[in-house]
């Protein structure tokens, strides 16, 4: 075989291996989507169906409209998940907003103002990323309890920002280093105040990094389970992650409903992957730590 033909064969072999690998990575997601359209009877059978067997929308009916097919013993199971989706959305949005409010100005100060405190604070942020969520969860529960914020939306949002704030500040700071100081300098010469320079010059220029951080904070808030579990024990509202856990809590899991609720929980991630893929890839390489 000529060298050239060998090279072409190697390329197609790479394609094959890559797509097998991607297939394995994506198979679990495919499996849950197929399963979400099966009846619970099918799901409990001894046969796994790689393609929809008797497709039905019953699970989505249970999950989105709260039908009667759940067991009677659990309160959560009859509660429809649409309210949970809305709660998740509120939590995720609030987490993204609060993360930006805290991290954008901080990153600006740490990148562009000369302060001795910077080294100390950046070190603290790096260490903060290391602290496991369960360590924070136990104490944050006590703190929020004292503050009367257990079982409230602000309480869980404050806890959820622990994922995104250190990450957000570090990513934004790294980005802001690339802004030339002359940009801010000329704004000041034109008479802009520090705040005006930040709001009218820096924020628009940092837009892509801000979107990256917002996407990550949103996904962290959306996918959070541990802080919802520990700070919302007995709240009148719960996010979709707790809703799914509620389905699991039954002795016999209502697989169909669990699968459909799981798929519903995948939707925003899927949408963001399509519309913000560039930002997600940037954020991941910037050293995202989730969980």
């Amino acid at each position, binding site marked *: 075989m000529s060298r050239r033909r060998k090279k072409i064969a190697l390329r197609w072999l790479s394609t094959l291996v*890559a797509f097998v690998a991607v297939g394995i990575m994506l198979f679990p997601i495919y499996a849950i989507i197929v399963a979400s359209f099966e009846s619970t009877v099918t799901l409990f059978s001894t046969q796994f169906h790689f393609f929809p067997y008797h497709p039905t929308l019953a699970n989505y009916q249970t999950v989105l409209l709260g039908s009667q097919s759940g067991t009677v013993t659990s309160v959560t199971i009859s509660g429809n998940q649409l309210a949970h989706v809305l709660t998740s959305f509120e939590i995720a949005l609030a987490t993204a907003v609060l993360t930006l409010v805290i991290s954008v100005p*901080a990153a600006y*100060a740490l990148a562009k103002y000369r302060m001795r405190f910077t080294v100390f604070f950046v070190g603290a942020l790096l260490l903060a990323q290391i602290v496991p969520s369960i360590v*924070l969860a*136990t104490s944050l529960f006590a703190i929020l309890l004292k503050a009367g914020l257990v079982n409230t939306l602000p309480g869980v949002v404050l806890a959820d920002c622990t994922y995104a704030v250190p990450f957000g500040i570090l990513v934004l700071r790294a980005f802001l280093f690339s802004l030339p100081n002359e940009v801010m300098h000329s704004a000041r010469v034109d008479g802009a105040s520090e705040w005006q320079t930040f709001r009218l010059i820096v924020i628009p220029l940092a837009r892509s990094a801000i979107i990256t951080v917002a996407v990550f904070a949103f996904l962290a808030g959306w996918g959070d389970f541990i802080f919802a579990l520990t700070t919302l024990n007995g709240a009148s509202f719960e996010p979709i992650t707790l809703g799914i856990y509620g389905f699991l809590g039954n002795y016999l899991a209502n697989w169909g409903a669990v699968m459909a609720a799981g798929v519903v929980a995948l939707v925003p991630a899927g949408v963001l992957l399509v519309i913000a893929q560039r930002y997600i890839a940037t954020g991941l390489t910037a050293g995202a730590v989730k969980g």
Partner: protein
Amino acid sequence: MHKQRLAGWLFLTPAIAYVLFAFATPIVYNVAFSFEHDSLSTIGSIGAPWAGTFNYTAMFNDQIAQSAIVHTLLFTVGSLAGQFIIGLSLALLFSNRFPGRTIARSLVIVPWLVPLIVTGVIFRFMFQQEGGAVNQILVDIGIIHTPIDWLGSTSYALLTLTLANIWLGVPFFTLLLYSALQEVPAEVKEAAMIDGAGAWQRLRLVTIPIILPVIEITFILGFVFTVKVFDLVIGMTGGGPANATQLISTWSYTLGFQEFNFGEAAALNNVLLVAALVCAPLYLLLSRDQLSRSSGAGR
């Protein structure tokens, strides 16, 4: 300039307040709780009875806590080894030019976007003994003859959990190592090739030494991420069967939030915190660029 100094501090104020509230105070609290007799009624207030080292003694005599520490260790080592080997292989694969490379590379990150509790549920479903996709595939292609009880047997459950976590971490390893590989100068690889180095030698003696700093930081972040895994376990096994998949994080949760034994939970949390902070010096060292980078003076 006073005005700028003031502005800098004002820009930082929300972040400082948040770090004090969400990181500094909880860590101090956690240390305090570990030396107190706390219950649900005292946890929200100051002044629980002093317990000395009681909680630590209790924890180190608690067989489930002991096994949780061992499980966390095995789970972490197994996960990181699997994630690194698969992640590096995929990163090397994606460094070649081949048709469909871009789309394959962007699809690899999808698992990372799935909420962890959902991942746990998916894997619980796929690893069912009866009607689970994994057993069915393995039986169909003839690797096993009888379905394995992946999640119900105490000897397989931790392995199954580790496999799921490897799946979860591969996108992160792949992406970080891939972007590091892009930084390896082509001339260096060509030079090694001309000197007669084979593919394996080039990888071991040229590529890996060059990307070593990134490998180190990826391991550290992967380690930090793995020791705190919680949602995945709750979704897949809930710590069972017979506590065979109980990790430090899940057992701490059970102690604190289900048995209201906040003291022992805090003691166990501190073990986890110390374990996580073991890599802190190395992490700070590798991040020294971020630390020492002088702020551009905006005069």
